[in-house]
């Protein structure tokens, strides 16, 4: 389960294991996830680690701040309407060294298979992390460490029915919340016409009592210009 743990640590879960043990006078961090392994020596006095879901942008490489969720079925939305749907999104897990702020990133890993795509054209488009999701009318069941649930509020401000097959997000603005059942977040998509829409994340939990995950760009001190994304190359 996500949360704070004391060092030394031995976490065995389906799909991954985390171990922090003392070897001589040193603490050694060992992680296995699928075929991937990581081992790192920790020199320091921090006594706790924080395991949190983080923005799914870091594996296998921090290549793009954009997340493309392609819908398995095309969605058509009535003019002037405002509807809620649920999607699944990929998870990455961040391991942070913590006692008090600031948090230091020790490791980020995922159990999902990463894939990238291009949104737009090769000259002016953007590289996005790719994910495919079905559309649900209620929060779908998810694998806790692999996927999260996104509540997407779609607003069609155009005067015609519009088809939507994907949603591109600036994932640096993600506001991820979690409890012991699921990881979730809320987002909105304002459809302006057949090729333009604006997306953004909302800073509120999907269910009462959910805890807010540490935002990785805050931990990494990355300055963020905007957390919105304007889809101009088609929906």
């Amino acid at each position, binding site marked *: 389960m996500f949360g704070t743990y004391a060092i030394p640590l031995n976490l065995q879960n389906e799909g991954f294991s985390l171990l922090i043990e003392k070897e001589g006078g040193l603490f050694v961090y060992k992680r296995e996830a699928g075929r991937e392994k990581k081992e790192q020596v920790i020199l320091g006095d921090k006594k706790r680690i924080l395991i949190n879901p983080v923005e799914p942008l870091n594996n*296998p*490489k921090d*290549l*793009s701040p954009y997340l493309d969720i392609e819908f398995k079925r095309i969605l058509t939305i009535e003019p002037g309407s405002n509807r809620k749907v649920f999607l699944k999104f990929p998870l990455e897990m961040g391991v942070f060294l913590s006692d008090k702020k600031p948090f230091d990133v020790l490791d980020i890993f995922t159990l999902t*298979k*990463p*894939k*990238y*795509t*291009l*949104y737009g054209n*090769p*000259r002016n*488009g*953007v*590289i996005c992390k*790719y994910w495919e999701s079905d559309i649900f009318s209620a929060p779908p069941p998810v694998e806790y460490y692999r996927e999260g649930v996104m509540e997407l509020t779609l607003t069609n401000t155009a005067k015609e029915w519009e088809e939507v097959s994907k949603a591109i997000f600036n994932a640096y603005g993600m506001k991820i919340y979690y409890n012991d059942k699921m990881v979730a977040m809320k987002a909105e998509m304002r459809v302006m016409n057949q090729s333009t829409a604006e997306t953004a994340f909302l800073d509120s939990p999907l269910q009462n009592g959910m805890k807010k995950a540490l935002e990785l760009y805050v931990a990494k001190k990355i*300055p963020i210009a905007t957390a919105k994304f304007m889809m101009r190359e088609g929906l």
Partner: protein
Amino acid sequence: MLNKVVWGKITFFHLLVAVVILLAAILITKILALYFRRFLKNRVSKDHLQLIIKIVSFTIYTIAILSAFAVLGLKLTGVLFGGAMAGIIIGFASQSIVGNFIAGIFLIIEKPIKIGDQVNIDDMTGFVEDIRIISTTIRTYDGLYVRIPNQTVFTTKMVNYVGNIVRRFDYMVGIRYSDDADKAIDIIKDVIEQHPFALKKPKSLVYVDNLGDNAVNIIVRIWAPVSEWYKLKQVMLWKIKVTLEQAGIEIAFPQRTLWFANELKSRSGESD
């Protein structure tokens, strides 16, 4: 001592003040350059940062030189006239330098290349190290320092390998005529699907391109982010070859089938 006349009405004191102004200008320029590098590092691109530093440095040096002239009592009109005359003479004597300078300005405005880009200019391929006002420097892949005049950069054919954010590479995979090409295509598509940097869109293409002399030739076209393109190209072909062979599909090699007009007699038959 300080009032001692050095030349005309210029005293040693005037000379000292002029030197101090020039040294102060150098010091201020260095401090500002350091400040800009530290505070603008993550806010503007490397080439824009260089341009800002150059403009600021040039402005400070110009002000310092004009101030030093004023302290020395040199009339600016005379200096400007002299400068203009010198400019005309130097301009005629060095037309190519002026051409390179103007080309440099256009390069900075048009921005066909940036520092760090991988380019081919005038048959020189490598990384752009610096774009100066007169010339552009390139570090070739084998580590050579190449200085190319900006006029050449601007007027010759230039290829910027990282100008777009995605790039494609192609392979030709030849399989035996006895193998199932449809099965091979499915396997290759699956290998592409498994790799994160082989892009979902633009879609990869895999199809039988031609029926060669010795093999059924399957063409494979894969798109990748430009930063990952070369690394992906290095690994994918071998992955495809190994996976095909694991499925019993062999890469074809050249072979000839010979037909003889008459049945061949064996040596043992001849001796009989």
